[in-house]
């Protein structure tokens, strides 16, 4: 054992990226001059050395099997000398030095069910979280809802007919491990029932001061229940952040009757034209309706088309709404403006309308 421990390596870090770069990239690293989109899902980067690198971007679910990875490897061996990459939004990208290989590769990708697209004025793959597939705090599923939304918006992935880019992200609870809060459209799972305290396990599993301190609205207080130390929840102070549940398993919020989905719009991370923006609440709540979530896919299609039909060229969702104003957006979308749309947490006042700049 002692010997084995001595041999055991730790902290050696990831393999160096250089060994994974195709020769054409090594030769032209830092020398790329410009790029052109040749057709949806295909672009070429041209180097100062006149070398040309073709990229074919294909859709991929974030959840993939080793069988699929091997299929991608087979295609990369056949067309790309054994190299390929993934993007920050779960797409798979094949890097070709021979233009003639583009169409055969696309045909082979179609055979295994992977369309190409997602470049330019398109909707690309949805960044998302684990959902019911692998998470304890999910208020909705992630992979399934993403599949339904992208099935419905498929035409906008494979074509470039939108005014600008549209980025959709999904997080299945407010923890937002997918950090969806700056997306053109964010789908966010929400809980709406305060935690139900399991007094029989709390004392064993949780540190009461930590649980109390975890609540941003002081809704969790120490309490003695049946002679045992535990906590109580002031339900009217709960805003369903689930931070208490994260620190204490005895405070579950998951509840089929009250969990569901909210839709947020108009965020962006790019600095192009306007500064980065947070997404704002459009639809406070839609119940979970698996396996196809038709109410969610319809709501999102309506938002996409409203923007597509009214925005100016290059205008992102948030830029368009900032130009026309939120009252007009609500009128055009037919979405009812409700109390939930008005912020009531810290710094809420900064979001109130503080001028007479109004349209009628």
């Amino acid at each position, binding site marked *: 054992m002692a010997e084995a421990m001595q041999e055991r390596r730790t902290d050696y870090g*990831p393999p160096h990226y250089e060994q994974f770069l195709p020769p054409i990239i090594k030769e032209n690293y830092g020398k790329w001059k410009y790029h052109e989109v040749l057709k949806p899902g295909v672009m070429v980067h041209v180097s100062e050395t006149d070398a040309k690198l073709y990229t074919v971007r294909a859709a991929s679910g974030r959840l993939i099997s080793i069988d699929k990875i091997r299929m991608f490897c087979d295609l990369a061996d056949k067309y790309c000398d054994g190299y390929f990459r993934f993007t920050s939004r779960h797409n798979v990208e094949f890097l070709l030095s021979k233009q003639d290989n583009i169409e055969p590769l696309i045909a082979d990708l179609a055979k295994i069910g992977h369309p190409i697209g997602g470049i330019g004025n398109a909707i690309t793959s949805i960044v998302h979280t684990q959902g019911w597939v692998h998470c304890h705090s999910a208020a909705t599923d992630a992979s399934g809802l993403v599949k339904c939304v992208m099935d419905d918006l498929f035409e906008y992935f494979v074509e470039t007919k939108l005014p600008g880019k549209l980025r959709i992200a999904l997080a299945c609870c407010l923890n937002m491990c997918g950090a969806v809060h700056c997306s053109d459209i964010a789908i966010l799972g929400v809980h709406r029932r305060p935690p139900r305290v399991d007094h029989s396990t709390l004392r064993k599993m949780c540190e009461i001061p930590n649980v109390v301190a975890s609540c941003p609205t002081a809704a969790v207080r120490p309490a003695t229940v049946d002679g045992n130390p535990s906590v109580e929840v002031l339900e009217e102070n709960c805003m369903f952040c689930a931070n208490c549940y994260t620190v204490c398993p005895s405070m579950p919020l998951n509840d089929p009757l009250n969990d569901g989905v909210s839709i947020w719009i108009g965020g962006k991370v790019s600095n192009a034209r306007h500064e980065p923006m947070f997404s704002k609440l459009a639809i406070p709540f839609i119940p979970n309706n698996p396996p196809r979530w038709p109410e969610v896919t319809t709501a999102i299609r309506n938002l996409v088309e409203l923007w597509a039909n009214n925005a100016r060229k290059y205008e992102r969702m948030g830029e368009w709404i900032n130009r026309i104003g939120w009252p007009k957006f609500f009128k055009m979308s037919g979405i009812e403006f409700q109390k939930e749309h008005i912020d009531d947490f810290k710094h809420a006042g900064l979001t109130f309308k503080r001028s007479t700049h109004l349209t009628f």
Partner: protein
Amino acid sequence: MADNLPNTPMLDELEKGKWPSFVKEIKMAAKHGPMAADLLGQLEQSYNEKIGHWKHGGIVGVMGYGGGVIGRYSDLPQKFPNISHFHTMRINQPAGWFYTTKALRSICDIWEKRGSGLTNMHGSTGDIILLGTTTDQLEPTFTDLQGIDFDIGGSGSDLRTPSCCCGMARCEWACYDTMALTYDLTMHYQDELHRPAFPYKFKFKMSGCPNDCVASIARADMSIIGTWRDEIQVDQDAVREYADRGLDIQSDVISNCPSKCMEWDGKELHIDNSFCVRCMHCINVMPKALRPGKDRGATILIGSKAPIIEGAFLSSVLFPFIKIEPPYDMIKDTVDKMWDVWCEEGKNRERIGEFIQRVGLGNFLDAIEIDPVPEMVAHPRENPYVFYEEYYEED
């Protein structure tokens, strides 16, 4: 397909449609062992009941590491015994997510032997996610990974696996070498990455230009975003070519310029670079004609995060411009000072952005010995309640 699959009418609906189906992926993985089939069964039950069936976390890991493995247990272990343990391993991805098929096939072989055969390519933080294995397979999986030189990534209150855009490898807009910096910081901070000792998580994200393809300004505690400080490189012939081919330079480019620093007289594009805010729009629209300047580096911003718990933040400027060159001492010195203050004074589960809001950016700057500059704020304070620390007294 495996023949051991449970009856899943709800999930089977999600095999239909044109978008790639994760249900097909789970079914493919089911031929490598019983885990994926049980996962399918439990997920079908979640679809019927509209609730997840995973227990809350659990502390598991590999020897010598405090993070990188997410413990996961089914709350229906009798019904789905093959996923009673279903832990996730986060594997530190190579910078830029470039692979050889040889390396990926090796990972697949390990995961066929040791786990469910399911992965995420990639997780939100950027890691390769190996989805689902049992506690007794964690250490053997790590041993196998050592054999192919892949190491574990971060989780919990530690440095999370740094990630970056493809940078100079495949982008003409990269204003610094994102992949080199990512690799260097990852190697330099291996201890912080593998042994959680912070108040909460800390993320670095490297984007090569202000388009910010890895969303670093929204989700990194330190966002390192490439920029330039000299003049946009203009090829006037190429600009005219865009115009000749039908681009309306006035409406598509000039009127979208946020700083109104450009003019087009039908022949030449004039840019007053002293007012350009480096937004990238004109360069995005005319990549053959315009390029970022030659004096390149990065803006460093700090403090972004998702809502938990004080609300969502975007990162704000710390250094308006610095050169990004090895050995990156200025970044490392700053990071070390930031971590010292935050680790000493930060509260449990307080991100550094929240910490800065609590103590005040001015005080935080004092503590890390950086002078305030106007680029750090959208505008000076509006509220007159200034916390002066000293006053004069008559002798």
